[in-house]
């Protein structure tokens, strides 16, 4: 073996050692460098007394002791490293990741500023938030979501064709919200205000899966993104609430009325800005922080299952029938949405190859009980519709109920297969991700087709 061979081998060993060290959360790049310098000093000395390079390396590593002990000692001094910090200030260690996260931060600031600015543009044309609240109610999503989509598309370097599609979809949404002659208090206007954000959220989803539109894995990522985004948005909203309370209290105390500022600037601009910021946070933190949505799912699946089963038992015992009031259908729709959410987010966090556990059975019970309840509700409601005729509200609610029911019914069937061990978990995952376009299609249908169908009632 020549000297340069030995040297190359030694470098390879050092590289491997560095790799092991850097896998420890307690040890950072600078620590690794410092320890490597130490190791090299040790190796040099051993080589000087006559050992071969590879022998010297082994002895030096052995002398340093186990990495476990080493990182435990480091953890005692640097306990903060066990708490992953959000890279807001930049990771001083790695320059590549640093420039990337800084560029992300920059793009996020631009998109947030854009969202806030676009929210204020209509005011230049004399549309103000207090007088034309219906306009803002219908268009709210149009101020924020295009900017979030822009941020995601930029991050994924979306192809021009896809960018064109995104722009066209948002334009279509804007037309649907504003071109129809909808009275402010009509049912159709309210339906548009509710369904346009959902429809546009799926356009954001299109930007999210820009790199691979058909991939089931990417769609699952989008579901995860949606859950985490919601969690961050709610957290930001809580913080914003505290900010507003203090703004109000302190200015009030010195006799300045901040209400106009809060209702016209702070609250709406903060809300549209938070949409983009929450999206950026999810992107920045996805590998840093444990996802929250699956944790919440784990907590609430048993509780919801207990409540639903309790409801069924109470229903059977009292035998009173369900009172389908005005809001009942919406309530049960939301119940299905929650059950579906619990299902989705535990799917999103589940290792596809993990064996069947108690939790899967619990989830099966949850789905079945939700299906049973919804079947009872649907029975009631169809009777009513045939009796009194239909309205836009009833049509939309019924359609959603049917869509969710179909999803849950087939999910239940797949889960039964899973429980009886002749279906794989992947089938359930594929079913859920494949179903996403159905929700999008229905939301667009409600926004675009329903108003003219019911002559803008």
């Amino acid at each position: 073996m020549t000297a340069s061979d030995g040297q190359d081998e030694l470098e390879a060993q050092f590289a491997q050692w560095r790799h092991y060290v850097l896998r420890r959360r307690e040890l950072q790049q600078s620590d690794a460098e410092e320890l490597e310098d130490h190791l090299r000093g040790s190796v040099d000395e051993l080589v000087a007394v006559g050992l071969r390079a590879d022998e010297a390396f082994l002895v030096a590593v052995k002398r340093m002791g186990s990495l476990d002990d080493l990182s435990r000692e480091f953890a005692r001094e640097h306990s903060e490293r066990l708490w992953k910090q959000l890279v807001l200030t930049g990771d001083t260690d790695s320059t590549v990741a640093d420039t990337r996260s800084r560029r992300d931060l920059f793009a996020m600031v631009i998109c947030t500023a854009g969202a806030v600015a676009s929210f204020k543009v209509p005011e230049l044309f004399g549309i103000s938030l207090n007088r034309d609240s219906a306009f803002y109610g219908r268009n709210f999503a149009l101020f924020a979501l295009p900017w979030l989509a822009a941020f995601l598309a930029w991050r994924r370097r979306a192809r021009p064709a896809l960018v064109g599609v995104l722009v066209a979809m948002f334009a279509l949404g804007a037309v649907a919200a504003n071109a129809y002659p909808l009275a402010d208090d009509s049912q159709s206007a309210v339906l548009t205000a509710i369904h346009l954000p959902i429809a546009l959220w799926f356009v954001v989803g299109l930007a999210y899966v820009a790199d691979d539109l058909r991939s089931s894995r990417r769609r699952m990522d989008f579901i995860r993104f949606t859950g985490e985004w919601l969690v961050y948005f709610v957290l930001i909203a809580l913080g914003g609430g505290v900010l507003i309370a203090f703004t109000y209290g302190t200015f009030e105390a010195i006799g300045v009325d901040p209400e106009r500022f809060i209702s016209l600037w702070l609250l709406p601009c903060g809300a549209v800005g938070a949409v983009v910021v929450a999206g950026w946070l999810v992107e920045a933190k996805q590998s840093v922080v444990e996802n929250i949505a699956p944790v919440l799912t784990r907590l609430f699946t048993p509780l919801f299952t207990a409540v639903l089963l309790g409801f069924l038992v109470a229903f059977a015992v009292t035998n009173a029938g369900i009172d389908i009031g005005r809001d009942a259908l919406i309530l049960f729709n939301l119940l299905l949405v929650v059950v579906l959410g619990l299902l989705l987010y535990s799917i999103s966090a589940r290792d596809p190859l993990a064996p069947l556990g108690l939790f899967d059975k619990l989830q099966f019970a949850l789905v079945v009980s939700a299906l049973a309840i919804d079947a009872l509700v649907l029975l009631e409601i169809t009777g009513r519709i045939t009796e009194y005729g239909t309205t836009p509200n009833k049509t939309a609610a019924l359609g959603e109920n049917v869509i969710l029911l179909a999803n849950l019914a087939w999910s239940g069937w797949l889960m039964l297969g899973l429980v009886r061990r002749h279906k794989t978990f992947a089938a359930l995952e594929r079913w859920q991700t494949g179903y996403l376009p159905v929700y999008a299609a229905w939301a667009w249908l409600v926004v675009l087709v329903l108003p003219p169908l019911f002559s803008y009632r």
Partner: protein
Amino acid sequence: MRVAKDLVAASATPMVLGILAEGDSYGYAILRRINGLSGGELDWTEGLLYPLLHRLERLGYVESSWQSVAGERRRKYYRITNTGLAELAEQRRQWDTVVDALKEIWLGPGDFRPFIAIALEGQA
């Protein structure tokens, strides 16, 4: 004979500060120096030295800088600060007190030196 772990830990700070007071140094050299000073009897590990150096840096007793040595290698040098010198003086005062007291007991005036000699002989 190896020095007990607790004693090593207790004497670590004044030892490192003392070595740095002689001049700037880096981890490996500090460890070698301690080894040389104690004839290999002080059992210092990297897990003791580096976190200690980082702690002293956090407390402001030492400051560090990266310097290039021998090609592409970078080495982290430590330098003692004025606060560090003050801390060293304080620790030295305390250690002197302890050492003096121990000396007083073991080597003080009186006639027990033979006892120690006997005890040592007995051990040997």
